[in-house]
């Protein structure tokens, strides 16, 4: 496999992300497999951010540590990231000539051609595509797709001239880099989506109708994407005054019968916790997307971590059923957004979906997802009798749910209540209702998603992971097996309740390593508590950066 890593680095505000997305789309149209990650600082201007685009001739699941081509929009990028160049790698520098770099004054070229510097990054994009030896037509087509409707033909043509000029300027360096061959004859996977976008589309397609949130990295992208598509899907999107309002608004909306969701991160989720408990008591299907980031407190706002698993598991005073999902790829994120809503509605209880900055910003190309609106079953009864009891005690623990405004009155109380929903201090009723709520776990456990196993069936060594660590672990398995290691991966995309089937693979393994983006091995501890594993090595990481496949393979060696 020819595997190429391109890194675009510049200050916040220099258009690093825009250029990254332009090239990602271009590579996808060239029939390549693309996987991108982002590393950025918590600031709007300045600093140094970078956008990695990894391309190959087969599907990718992880980022890479080293760079084959560094596009440096700032001199600091050369100094800081030049060290991470792979063997034979090159630096394309937007500035004056200096030793060891291919220097092109992107801004100067743009100014000369168009009279302004705004198209400097298009010059760079043209240079990149040419350096990698690809035809320019797909880049031109992307430029037309972006600018024709918004800015008109003249702007498209100016951009094309800039890209063309960038390509001409790197002609002397042609053939210096070895990039994967464009997918001749392979159907191009032109659909690209990020983790955050996939969550948003998954929720929208499953029929979410109400979104209340307070912006917080790294989940803000879900909120803004839902706002962008709200008209198409008929969603009411409201920015709440704080996360306490967000969760209580969502719970109110679910009471009235509308699938609702909140997006947040650790600190915001901390404020929502009383609301999580309320949803547990009222038995309402609140769904929260928790984009984890390194804590405690404000921590590293724009970096990645898997540190809030135990927090989410135990969030909410008292005892009540809850499900936790943790997708590992944009495809899983899209599918699990629906599953999260379905579980919440079927069992009338809060569900949390764990994400993080790595998954949020991870973008890859794939066969198009079906984003058609196909609303979930809300499990509503429409013909309750007049003596309807909201909390009728049932064997499954799930009481028939009616909506206010229908034939019966619907009474819900955060106090302990009797079956009719009214406040009570009858302690035997308390036990009956607590038992009823807890019984929902029987069904939820039986339906818990089994972990996905990847790798040889007979492998005795196992990497265990959850959430966004899916891709790096999967790549590590491939890397190690290509050297004859005999290792497989077990990935949990539902981390609570834990599927009993997880135990089968775990018991057969002779060596188990749990790979987690935290310091204490939170999931390993949960597996031990569940009696699914006895001995388990830990591979942890909590420096704010995601794992890579090569890193895991190296650390296991």
């Amino acid at each position, binding site marked *: 496999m020819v595997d190429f890593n391109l890194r675009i680095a510049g200050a916040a505000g220099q258009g690093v992300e825009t250029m990254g997305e332009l090239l990602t789309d271009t590579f996808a149209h060239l029939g390549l497999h693309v996987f991108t990650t982002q590393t950025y600082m918590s600031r709007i201007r300045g600093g140094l951010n970078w956008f990695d685009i990894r391309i190959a001739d087969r599907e990718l699941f992880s980022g890479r540590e080293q760079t084959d081509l560094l596009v440096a929009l700032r001199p600091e990028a050369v100094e800081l990231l030049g060290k991470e160049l792979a063997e034979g790698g090159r630096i394309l520098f937007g500035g004056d000539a200096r030793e060891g770099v291919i220097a092109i004054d992107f801004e100067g070229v743009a100014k000369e051609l168009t009279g302004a510097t705004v198209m400097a990054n298009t010059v760079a994009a043209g240079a990149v595509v040419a350096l990698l030896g690809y035809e320019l037509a797909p880049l031109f087509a992307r430029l037309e797709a972006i600018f024709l409707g918004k800015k008109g033909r003249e702007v498209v043509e100016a951009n094309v001239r800039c890209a063309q000029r960038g390509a001409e300027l790197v002609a002397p360096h042609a053939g210096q880099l070895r990039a994967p061959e464009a997918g001749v004859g392979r159907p191009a996977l032109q659909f690209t989506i990020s983790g955050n976008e996939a969550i948003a589309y998954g929720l929208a397609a499953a*029929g979410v*109708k109400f979104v209340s949130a307070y912006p917080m990295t790294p989940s803000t992208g879900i909120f803004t994407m839902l706002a962008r598509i709200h008209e198409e899907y*008929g969603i009411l999107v409201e920015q709440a005054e704080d996360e306490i309002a967000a969760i209580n608004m969502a719970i*109110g*909306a679910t009471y*009235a019968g*509308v699938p609702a969701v909140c997006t947040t991160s650790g600190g915001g989720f901390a404020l929502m916790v009383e609301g999580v408990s309320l949803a547990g008591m009222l038995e309402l299907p609140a769904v929260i997307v928790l984009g984890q980031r390194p804590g405690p407190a404000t921590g590293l706002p724009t970096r990645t971590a898997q540190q809030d698993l135990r927090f989410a598991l135990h969030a909410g005073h008292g005892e009540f059923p809850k499900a936790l999902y943790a997708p590992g790829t944009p495809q899983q994120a899209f599918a699990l957004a629906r599953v999260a809503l379905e579980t919440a509605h079927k069992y009338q209880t809060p569900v949390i979906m764990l994400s993080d900055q790595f998954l949020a910003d991870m973008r890859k190309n794939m066969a198009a997802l079906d984003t058609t609106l196909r609303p979930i079953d809300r499990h509503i009864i429409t013909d309750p009798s007049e003596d309807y009891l909201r909390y009728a005690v049932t064997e499954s623990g799930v009481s028939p749910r009616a909506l206010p405004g229908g034939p019966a*009155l619907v009474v819900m109380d955060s106090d302990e209540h009797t079956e009719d929903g009214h406040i009570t201090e009858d302690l035997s009723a308390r036990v009956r209702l607590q038992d009823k709520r807890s019984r929902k776990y029987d069904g939820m456990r039986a339906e818990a998603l089994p972990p996905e196993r990847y790798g040889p069936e007979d492998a005795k060594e196992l990497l265990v992971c959850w959430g966004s660590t899916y891709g790096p672990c999967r790549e590590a398995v491939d890397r190690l097996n290509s050297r004859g290691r005999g290792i497989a991966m077990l990935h949990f995309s539902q981390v609570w309740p834990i599927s009993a089937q997880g135990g089968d693979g775990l018991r057969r393994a002779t060596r188990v390593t749990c790979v987690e983006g935290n310091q204490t091995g939170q999931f390993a501890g949960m597996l031990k508590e569940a009696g699914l594993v006895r001995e388990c090595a830990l591979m942890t990481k909590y420096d704010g950066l995601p794992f890579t496949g090569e890193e895991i393979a190296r650390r296991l060696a």
Partner: protein
Amino acid sequence: MTLGKPFFDMDIAWCPGCGDYSILRTLGKILDEMQLDRRKLVLVSGIGQAAKLPHYTRANVFNGLHGRALPAAVGIKLANHELEVVITSGDGDMYGEGGNHFIQNLRRNVGIKVFVHNNQVYGLTKGQASPTSDLGFVTPVQTEGVVSPPFNPLAIAVAEDCSFVARSFAGDPAHLGRMMRAALEHRGGFALLDILQPCVTFNKVNTYQWYRERVRPIDDSHDPSDRAKAFALALTWGDEIPIGLIYRSTRPSFESQQCALREGTLVGRHEVTGA
């Protein structure tokens, strides 16, 4: 047959003589007079003595968390704006714990009705100061008397151009009924009705007698669209306390500006397209 029964006849946990009884009775009477379909009525509350009121009624009930009646009610109303959503809350619940929601929802202007039982004291926790306690009010916690000036919900509501701002007194059921009815009939958005409600157990200062000597119905000549005069009325407190409709604004409601609600209720949209 729940709906055939009277609006309230339950075992009630309030102290004998509590101002809350008058609020409950008056609400029942007005709802009957208006012939409001109780199946379309949702009573929302947080925690406190006032927040127990929904349990003493036959209506849809959402009794949520302390201080959080407002966001829950907003969620309910936006999910189904054909429901009549009424909050019954106390001064601690609404102006203290829920203060930020109060400030922000005056701006948001969702068409919910907010009835605040304002007794200037914490009842359920036994007699501490509330945000509306007067200066010098002595309690088991504020042993040397309250030193922070009282929160003025009406002045803040007028300052934020709240669409309906009124005050009434639990000791004057006729006046209270008129104000409740006006609030329930208000169609422009958020309606705030602050109700002076004597607490006979924990507030020995602001008694029925104390309020009776001070409340003065606002003169018929007052134009509720005159914001400066409304603000002056809202600031009036002490020897004379004005009661009545203080302010009414004509700005559009939140719901009327949402494209997702243009074709009907959100919950209706789900029913059309889904299961």
